[in-house]
């Protein structure tokens, strides 16, 4: 499944990017470039070749790990995109952890106390969460926690005065590896607001999904069996029921994680987070084909890989699902 999806993705990104009006040559040379100069540049960049030749050249390069060269900076995209990618990935991961932790527990709570005020309150929280636009939530967070209360920094990944040399570019991880507690604390403080802003919608979706899935599982016969054995309520919920309820919930984890990776652009803009969303946004404005194509392709690839992981998780959780066996 992975390979045909990736081929399809490469064709689609290639076509979309080339359908965007505007010429990269114009973007590079500026508005006042002479037609001759533009002609020459386009010839050099191979933009006058038939589209399918451009496509095959692009795929051929891809297979060699060459994602093309950014026309803005002249550096290879593969090299340039990496720090942006890790920044986004770190943010999305933290947002997802928040979303899973609060979403799952909120969902369990309201399923366990179905039709009580606890249930209604949890679901109202979830409804507010899902209907609050990210940009508004982000701005409110900045206003309250950064501006008024001055508890947390409002933008960036780290205080620029911090003496810090990233290794993997996952700042939290790097700070931990280096044993740099100041940096760890600072990175964490910078992470908090954007991660909450980004994680709120998935949190709400996960909470609702968990609730309905748990409600179904809690009604099942094997939960009654567990109770008949004398198992405590906590174990029934978190062991017997949750493992079964997780099967549909995990699907949502995968989809949401994919959306977070691609959809972090608003959050990244608000919190000046140097992530792949901002990188692509700038590239689109500059008609930087190579960057846009590769960026989208990479995000799509990650999306596909996450869903592959989700499929593997199914089999790990549910013994009835087995791959590759008749």
């Amino acid at each position, binding site marked *: 499944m992975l390979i045909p999806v990736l081929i399809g993705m490469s064709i689609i990104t290639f076509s979309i990017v080339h359908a965007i009006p505007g010429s990269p040559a114009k973007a590079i040379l500026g508005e006042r470039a002479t037609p001759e100069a533009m002609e020459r540049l386009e010839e050099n960049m191979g933009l006058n070749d038939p589209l399918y030749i451009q496509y095959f050249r692009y795929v051929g390069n891809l297979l060699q790990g060459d994602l093309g060269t950014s026309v803005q900076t002249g550096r290879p995209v593969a090299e340039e995109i990496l720090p942006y990618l890790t920044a986004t990935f770190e943010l999305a991961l933290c947002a997802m952890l928040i979303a899973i932790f609060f979403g799952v527990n909120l969902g369990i709570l309201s399923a366990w106390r179905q039709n009580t005020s606890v249930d209604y309150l949890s679901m109202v929280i979830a409804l507010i969460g899902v209907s609050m636009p990210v940009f508004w939530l982000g701005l409110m967070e900045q206003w309250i926690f950064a501006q008024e209360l001055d508890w947390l920094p409002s933008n960036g990944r780290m205080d620029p005065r911090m003496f810090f040399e990233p290794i993997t570019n996952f700042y939290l991880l790097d700070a931990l590896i280096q044993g740099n507690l100041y940096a760890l604390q600072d990175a964490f403080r910078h992470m908090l607001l954007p991660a909450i802003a980004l994680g709120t919608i998935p949190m709400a979706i996960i909470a609702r999904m968990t609730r309905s899935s748990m409600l179904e599982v809690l009604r*099942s*016969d*094997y939960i*009654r*069996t*567990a*109770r*008949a*054995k*004398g*198992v*405590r*309520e906590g174990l029934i919920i978190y062991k*017997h029921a949750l*493992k*079964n309820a997780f099967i549909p919930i995990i699907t949502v984890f995968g989809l949401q994680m994919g959306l977070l990776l691609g959809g972090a652009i608003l959050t990244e803009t608000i919190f000046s987070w140097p992530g792949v969303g901002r990188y692509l946004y700038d590239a689109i404005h500059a008609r930087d084909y190579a960057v846009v194509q590769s960026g989208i392709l990479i995000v799509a690839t990650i999306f596909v890989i996450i869903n592959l992981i989700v499929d593997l998780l199914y089999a790990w*959780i*549910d*013994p*009835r699902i087995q791959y590759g066996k008749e």
Partner: protein
Amino acid sequence: MVRPLLEISRFKMYFHTDKGVVKAVDDVDLTVNEGEVVGLVGESGCGKSVTSLSVMGLVPRPPGRVEGGSIRLADRELTHLKGREWRKIRGNVVSMIFQEPMTSLNPVFTIGDQIVEAIRQHRKLDKKAARRLAADSLQEVGISRKGILEEYPHQLSGGMRQRVMIAMAMVCRPKLLIADEPTTALDVTIQAQILDLMRRLNRETGTAILMITHDLGVVAEMCDRVVVMYAGQVVEEADVNTLFNQPRHPYTQGLLQSIPRLGQRAERLYSIPGNVPNPKQMPTGCRFAPRCEYAMNICRTEEPGLFAIGDGQNSRCWLHVDKKEEADRDPTTTTS
């Protein structure tokens, strides 16, 4: 000397729903002696499952609420128990197996894990010892194949799963096993095996069994004594031979008549006319009166008590007394 193990007396469990009160169990008396196999018989919705779930403390509350009466198990009152006290009893003193073996085991845990969990809930054993005990208990129910502890429920057939359920229920040697239609979902040949198994375990371990069923064949094969329920009440109680030979309550008579017999080719199978009353609107007087061919005037106005009619046989019917006054004088009656 027979000693009562489970004594349910005048027990009432009502469900309070938005649409009214459902008197699922209304004034039920039931006794199971130590080591005895008692059948609890009745149509679906007559309250037999709710009665048994009440003994386990598994009736969801709300909407269920105990409205009166008591349940005593091994000299202990159960109706006031709290969560922790219930958990000490469930699976330990009383355990239960259910109708649907296909869905009663948790699909994502192995057989071994599930039995070990039941053991370690009540016995202080390390994991190894508990696994050995689990394997032993499976052997006891006739599953000795290697690696069974590592298998998942979906790898087993329905009959095998019910055996696993029985092994799990019996592993802590409960004094009482409640079996809620344990063979209804199984093939006939497997049914007989499971019934044999339960009978054998009853003899070998002395665990009493409360057998809930609507199948009178199962009752005839398994039980020492039978309790018949109708519309949330016990209508007749007798030892198994008496009940089959001399049923005294018209409802029991109807039930027995409706069993088709080999060699008799009836034009139509017998069925009791009418329907089970709506539990939200019970008829006044005897609840069976609207369907009863012997119904008298008193049946429609006053509710009969459970009259003792000799040889441990009880019947809730006005036919057993000439006049109501006589019933009032009888010290064993429980007129309500």
